[in-house]
């Protein structure tokens, strides 16, 4: 198993991600996916998750 095989779950919606979208760290304690991050920061208008979260 390599580092690239490791996936983590978004702390907000549970989506599988390779690394935290905010800090870019695979070992982040509060990982967040791109969609949740952009919505949390108001960079995007809230809409249904494409991955069902």
């Amino acid at each position, binding site marked *: 198993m390599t580092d690239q095989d490791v996936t983590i779950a978004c702390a907000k919606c549970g989506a599988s991600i390779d690394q*935290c*979208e*905010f*800090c*870019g*760290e695979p070992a*982040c304690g*509060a990982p967040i996916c791109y969609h949740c*991050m952009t919505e*949390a*920061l*108001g*960079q*995007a*208008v809230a809409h249904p998750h494409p991955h069902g979260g």
Partner: protein
Amino acid sequence: MYDYEDGKLDWLAAGLPSEGTNAQRPRAGDLARKDVPTCRLDERLGDVRDRAREAGWEACVVVNEDRVVFGLLRSKELEANPDLRIEEAMRPGPSTFRPFVSIEEMATFMIEHDLESSPVTMSDGRLVGLLRKQDAAKAALELHERKHGSHGGQP
């Protein structure tokens, strides 16, 4: 009447004027440091590191000729082998943030994730500046105290 076809978020992202109560609140673009050093992909890391440190920085943003962000060198990346090319040493495709993002949200995220700096860009990827955690945290604290009064003051 002018119809701005790219929408409200893009208008705000471009740093164009806005009105209303929220327009008075500090945003990521207001506090992003415009004097952050920049470099190109084909430069040598050692040269870029010396240049950044001479200017008092432990970070450098990698951009192209149009100032579109390609990557980021934070203190960890700047410590790598000085003979590496920037392309090999940089953190590619860092998350970037729009200038209109609330400074309170950014400060909260930066503290929670222990992120020392975040690039702020226009919606087309062009660099606005680098937001430093200490600047965001200081502004958010001042805003909080203005809103709620400083802790330990008169009731």
